[in-house]
């Protein structure tokens, strides 16, 4: 019996050892091949069928779109067979264990923080050489902020989609309140004060009084002017011309007054102006699109992905540009595609990677309003824009200016695209802000209190 145990353990080890043998590092060889041979030839070189695995999270509808893209790829490249793995829940945990077991998918969607960390640990394939050598795709053909650099010559991944914040609203509620709708043009967008005033006019208590009325009862609100995502506590940093990490990447600016102010302005929507639901009130609100549909909320400060649900809700909705504090700006939040360093077929994996980035192949994800392309010409050529940005019901009239123009002209990546150890740092700051949302502490005080702990976790930045 002990022999059996020993056998199991040994065989397990040798399996792992074999796998570690084909670590990265030897990528240059594959790259040379890829640069000389292009398109289909990459796969047809070797007679046998190459098998790849591709993994994403996502809703059942997203799963369908990914599966369709995979099927199209398999049909186009008969010598490559991609198997699609849909992991709807606990994606990070499952991919982690797969990586640890050296059985990671060849190409997969991954959150940026983990992607950078794993790229640093050489668990992700450095796709920079591919990107440099490829004849069809290169960094200057992509929109700004699309490439995720781990280091000067190391790319962790390219955003699978762009995601940008905007001010989504129910038009009818503005008409009823006699309030002008938020401008879509980034250069004419509301100032923060105009935004707050509109939100006040759109917040109604149970007697129909708005939040500007001296009799207004904040304890019994029937309709909120606005809701926002507390997890995106950094969403106003861009417009307030500040950053969590200093420009040179050497320090965290938790005590920067503009950082505190950007968070305080959000908290004040709840506790000072009573135009946004507090933590407990939010619990009893439905999902953002339904909240707009059922007129519980007039404006939703949210990512463009809500468009899928808004489109399905059949209400009269549109989108305005993010209000500005100092300059027009929006928060970008797209997650990257990555390639495993353990892939046995980097050339073919890159072939597939490229295919998935080409909006033509996953058009449904873009035309539904859920995703935004990262290929620049899809923002410039009218015939391409017509394929996605004008498709209803997932897109509204304000989209091109409020979301697309904002993204390419004024988009700012969140701090976790460069910050090292961002998961721990976020896990410290997020909970510390709970007291701010509850109105028990000011943002400045909370940040000051948590600062020593956060500084201890600060380990610099990634990037070129």
């Amino acid at each position, binding site marked *: *019996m002990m022999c*059996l*145990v020993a056998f*199991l*353990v040994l065989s397990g080890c040798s399996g792992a050892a074999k796998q*570690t043998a084909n670590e990265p590092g030897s990528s240059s060889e594959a790259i040379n091949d890829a640069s000389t041979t292009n398109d289909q030839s990459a796969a047809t070189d070797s007679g046998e069928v190459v098998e790849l695995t591709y993994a994403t999270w996502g809703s059942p509808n997203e799963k369908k779109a990914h599966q369709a893209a995979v099927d199209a790829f398999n049909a186009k490249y008969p010598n490559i067979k991609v198997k699609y793995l849909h992991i709807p829940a606990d994606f*990070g*945990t499952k991919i*982690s*264990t797969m*990586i*640890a077991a050296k059985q990671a998918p060849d190409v997969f969607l991954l959150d940026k923080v*983990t992607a950078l*960390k*794993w790229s640093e*640990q050489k*668990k992700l394939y450095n796709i920079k050489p591919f990107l440099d050598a490829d004849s069809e795709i290169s960094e200057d053909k992509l929109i700004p902020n699309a490439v995720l650099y781990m280091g000067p010559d190391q790319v962790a991944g390219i955003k699978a989609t762009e995601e940008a914040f905007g001010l989504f609203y129910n038009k009818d509620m503005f008409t009823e309140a006699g309030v002008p709708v938020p401008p879509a043009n980034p250069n004419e967008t509301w100032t923060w004060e105009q935004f707050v005033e509109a939100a006040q006019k759109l917040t109604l208590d149970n007697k129909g009084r708005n939040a500007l009325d001296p009799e207004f009862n904040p304890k019994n609100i029937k309709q909120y002017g606005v809701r926002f995502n507390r997890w995106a506590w950094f969403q106003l940093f861009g417009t307030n011309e500040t950053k969590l990490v200093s420009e040179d990447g050497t320090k965290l600016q938790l005590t920067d007054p503009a950082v505190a102010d950007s968070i305080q302005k959000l908290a004040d929507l709840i506790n000072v102006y009573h135009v946004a639901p507090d*933590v*407990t*009130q939010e*619990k*009893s609100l439905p999902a953002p699109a339904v909240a707009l549909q059922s007129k519980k909320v007039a404006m939703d400060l949210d990512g463009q992905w809500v468009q899928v649900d808004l489109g399905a809700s059949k209400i009269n909705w549109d989108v305005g540009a993010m209000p500005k504090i100092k300059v027009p700006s929006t928060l970008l939040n797209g997650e990257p595609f990555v390639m495993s360093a353990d892939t046995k077929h980097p050339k073919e994996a890159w072939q597939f990677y490229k295919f998935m980035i080409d909006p033509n192949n996953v058009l449904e994800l873009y035309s539904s309003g859920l995703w935004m392309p990262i290929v620049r010409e899809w923002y410039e050529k009218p015939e391409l824009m017509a394929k996605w940005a004008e498709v209803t019901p997932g897109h509204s009239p304000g989209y091109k200016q409020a979301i697309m123009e904002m993204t390419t002209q004024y988009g700012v990546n969140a701090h976790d695209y460069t910050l090292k150890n961002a*998961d*721990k740092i976020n*896990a*410290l700051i997020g*909970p*510390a802000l*709970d*007291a701010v949302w*509850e109105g028990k502490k000011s943002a400045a005080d909370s940040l000051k209190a948590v600062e020593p*702990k956060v500084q*201890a*976790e600060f380990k610099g930045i990634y990037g070129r």
Partner: protein
Amino acid sequence: MQSLSVLRRRENWFGWLFAAPAILGFFVFILGPMAASLYYSFTDYQIAGDPTFVGGRNYANLFNGVDPFFYKSIFVTLYYVILSVPLQMITAFILALILNRKIKGRAFFRVVFYLPTIMPVIASSMVWIWMFDPDLGLLNEALRTLHLPTSNWIYSSSSVIPTLVFMSLWTVGGTMIIFLAALNDIPKQYYEAIEIDGGGRLQRLWHITIPLASPSIFFNTIMSVIGGLQVFVQPYAMTAGGPNDASLFYVFYLYREAFTFGNMGNASAIAWVLFIVTMILTYVIFKTSQKWVYYEGGEA
């Protein structure tokens, strides 16, 4: 003689064979992973990387406060244990006392109180989330009807732990059943004797019921302390450790360290600290038990 020894040897062989699944399971699924995690706890092991030996650094980082969540999660967990264990014991014991009497529908109520324990915690957590909803939840609705102050339950950092303790009282059925069995075992003569001596209800409880049930109280206390130290589903499914880390239970913190932050080495160290703390607490309870646990027939 010869044939007997062959038979015995064969029996011996079959014995091992039949025990093999359990023994093998123990080695492969318990001892093996334990040994591995003990080793990993002395390494810097990022889930995606290869472990490198770092000696006691992981442990040192926990205790000297480099890890910002360690003491917080210990505090949260101990707070829960200290609050929940006595309350669970008292509730289960009182239920057992009531259901040990010859009341109407006794069998029915025994089933009713036991029922919640067979429900998966994750399912009951989902239901409780609705009950705890501050605006639409059943509990606050009831309080409002009675014109009593409402609570934010799991959504406020001060009330989240008491709320989870309250919720845990719903599943004391298992403990109650063990108490019931113990109460059933108490010989009737003792009660007759105390009746003759003129003892009242309280004396009966204090001098007979509790001492004679003390082995089961002892057992249940240990189980419930261990259960309290290992709370995971509630923070995982209901609170995500919040608000403001007020429900950052130890095992949830351990899970997050392992699978969100990917620090397997550190997570292994965290797990071993829990193992040792659990052993120490159990040992302490065992030691004190000599003072208050009464075994019929002398030393156990």
